[in-house]
């Protein structure tokens, strides 16, 4: 199974503050451990929302807004994509993240094909435009 682990933004990450050297090194060590265990598929940090845009879709009209965006708790700061046999396993692996200042991460499962039920067509002629990761 695959999972996405999202890091919620903080005031620091939105302000573009780089973490202290120690935390950087702990994070690198954490990611190395995930890679050593063969379960790390991707991990990226994201720049603050001042370097981002929002698009809103309303009955055929698209509105584009420039960042930054005020509601920090709606934002994400980075993500991992990991492999695991269960959500409990991912929770257990991420329990040891070197975070200690109230940061929040969220673990989500990837859709499996059966989630789409009858909407899911295997006919090559009928691509539903799904991106699979």
């Amino acid at each position: 199974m695959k999972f996405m682990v999202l890091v919620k933004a903080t005031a620091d990450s939105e302000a573009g503050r780089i973490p202290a050297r120690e935390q950087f090194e702990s994070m690198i060590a954490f990611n190395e451990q995930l890679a050593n265990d063969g379960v790390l598929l991707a991990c990226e940090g994201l720049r603050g929302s001042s370097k981002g845009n929002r698009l809103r879709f309303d009955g055929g009209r698209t509105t584009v807004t420039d960042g930054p965006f005020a509601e920090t708790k709606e934002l994400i700061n980075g993500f991992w994509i990991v492999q695991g046999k269960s959500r409990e396993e991912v929770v257990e692996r991420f329990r040891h993240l070197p975070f200690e200042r109230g940061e929040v991460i969220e673990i989500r499962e990837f859709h499996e094909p059966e989630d789409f039920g009858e909407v899911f067509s295997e006919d090559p002629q009928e691509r539903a435009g799904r991106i699979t990761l």
Partner: protein
Amino acid sequence: MQETIAAVWRIESPKLIARLARMTRDVGRAEDLAADAFVAALAQWPSEGIPRTPGAWLMTTAKRRLIDRVRREKTLAEKTELLQNQPPYDGTEPDFAATYEDIDDDVLRLMFVACHPVLSPEARVALTLKLLGGLTTAEIARAYLSSEATVAQRIVRAKRTLSEARVAFEVPEGHERLQRLPPVLEAVYLIFNEGYAATAGNDVLRPELVEDALRLGRMLARLMPHETEVHGLVALMEIHASRIPARLASDGSAILLLDQDRGKWNHLLIERGLDALARAERLGPLGPYALQASIAACHARAATPDATDWRRIVALYDGLAVITPSPVVELNRSVAVGIAYGPEAALAIVDALVDVPSLHAYHLLPSVRGDLLFKIGRLGEARLEFERALALAGNARDRAFLQKRADECRNGR
């Protein structure tokens, strides 16, 4: 709680067993000690909660048990050797980093021992999944449609074989590594193939085994970053796995590579595979896994079947035929030749394989020959070949596919 404890075992057991194996020089004993520690965890953690550093807790528990056993054993020499570097246990929870210092070396040693040539390939697979994959005997049995008793027996026998052969707990170097590495890679690849293209039963695909193999391969690539064939194997597996979302039709039958909807290919895995292949290429001449990965990469890079560089694939198969000549490689080469240069050229290659003993039970030979004959217009002969393949195919889905092809010959299209 149950699932979390199981997850902790899956994460920690390879390191635990590896470190204990180094201490005791006996993989079987190490595994027993680890299993005992796990039983203690199952008994205590539900009421006490999961420890902050579960790995350290398990190691302490296992070490204590080992020291107890050693004290009861009579050989003074053995006692001295094992107790020499153990500080007295003072009741504090040891630091995780110190517990598992240099653990990578031990995990690598464990990998080589689990795949020792003195064991049968099936035993290596079972031991690898148990000791390094962190799978339980029940999980292995389920994955291989076997009984737990059978798998347990196989593992017991394997541990005994290793003990009797006095297999050293070491990482082979130099010339010895050249011979000891292929069985390691083969074990991982066997696990992958059982998950990706199951040989028996009604399911073509067992995704959990695919993930286990990928995980083991990636672990190996981190443990042996300078071995080109390790990266080659990882590249091959990542790219093959990328096709999984496109491989099965809604009725569960297999869709051939050239008929797959490429929009469903997992592009993250393709990127990972191409990265691994690039690492292999940087390290030196390509071995068989890297060459196969290069072939898979040709397909992965083609947005449509028509965009495939078939001539490059033929050239890669020519290379493969030199390094690892085999009838199966010849057969695969013939398929590429057929597309790049026409069915007649390919049929010439396949006709030379018809009497090869090792392919007599291989359903893909008559299947390929049937396909080539069909393209040339020799429908009667094509049908006979598809029926021959049908009789040999072990997988229900393959049989259904071959029946359809045989029927097409009868109907003239």
